[in-house]
């Protein structure tokens, strides 16, 4: 019988991916750090029950992260991110022809479902197949939903130009 696989053997890239997902979901900051910390506490607890035949370590961690967020009742836009939008006043920046809105603040304006998809794809770097597995969906449906989420992100992320 072989030794059990350790899903947390190379933790640093996993921590970064989990954090990025959480931050896209609830906003960058202390709460995202708390949630990420809790994700890894749970992961450590269930570390040796991980089955590599069922899922990749990052998919397994994402399932834990989703569970932690659900337990905390998080799924709405972060007030911190909304604050960041208010601060991004085009007139405040001299010499700039185009004011770029903060990307994360734009993400925060999306619906919970869109942020979920954006977080899984661009934060956690999951493939459409892995996202589909996690959301119990089909990869094609995930691709379509992601494409729509990105389109909505584009529509939120409009800025004024002084041209």
């Amino acid at each position, binding site marked *: 019988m072989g030794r059990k696989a350790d899903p947390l053997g190379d933790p*640093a890239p996993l*921590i970064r991916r989990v954090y990025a997902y959480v931050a896209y979901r609830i906003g960058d900051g202390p709460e995202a750090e708390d949630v990420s910390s809790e994700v890894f506490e749970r992961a450590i607890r269930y570390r040796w029950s991980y089955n590599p035949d069922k899922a990749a370590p990052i998919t397994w961690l994402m399932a834990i992260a989703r569970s932690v967020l659900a337990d905390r009742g998080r799924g709405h836009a972060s007030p911190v991110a909304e604050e960041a939008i208010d601060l991004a006043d085009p007139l405040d920046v001299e010499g700039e022809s185009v004011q770029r809105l903060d990307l994360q603040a734009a993400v925060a304006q999306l619906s919970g479902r869109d942020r979920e998809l954006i977080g899984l794809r*661009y934060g956690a*770097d999951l493939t459409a197949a892995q996202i589909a597995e996690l959301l119990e969906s089909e990869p094609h449906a995930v691709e379509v939903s992601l494409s729509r989420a990105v389109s909505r992100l584009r529509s939120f992320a409009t800025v004024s130009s002084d041209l």
Partner: protein
Amino acid sequence: MRRFWDSGQDHGDIEVRLRAERPGPSQDLLDRITGQLADDGKQRRALSKTRKSVAVVFASLVLMSGFGAAAFGAAGGNGNGNNGNGNGNSGTPAGCVEGQGQVTLQNPNC
């Protein structure tokens, strides 16, 4: 109106930016979690060693009791002898008297 990703200087797509500018954890969080993982690994290894030691001791006890039972049987056991028919003529230790299909207990090894 311009989109924020379309600044005129940078033609990168929004998807590239979503990846490139994804939020990162603080060094403190990275250190804390990797520290917890390392501690857990050490505890597991220590626990594993303890379990192995307990298993070895238990296996030794089982083996020893097996040998003890065999020796007890070889020594005449509970009076029926090691051949089970009461003759007890093989392996009966000195001090045990045989007769009438039974071995009389004369010493503690009988």
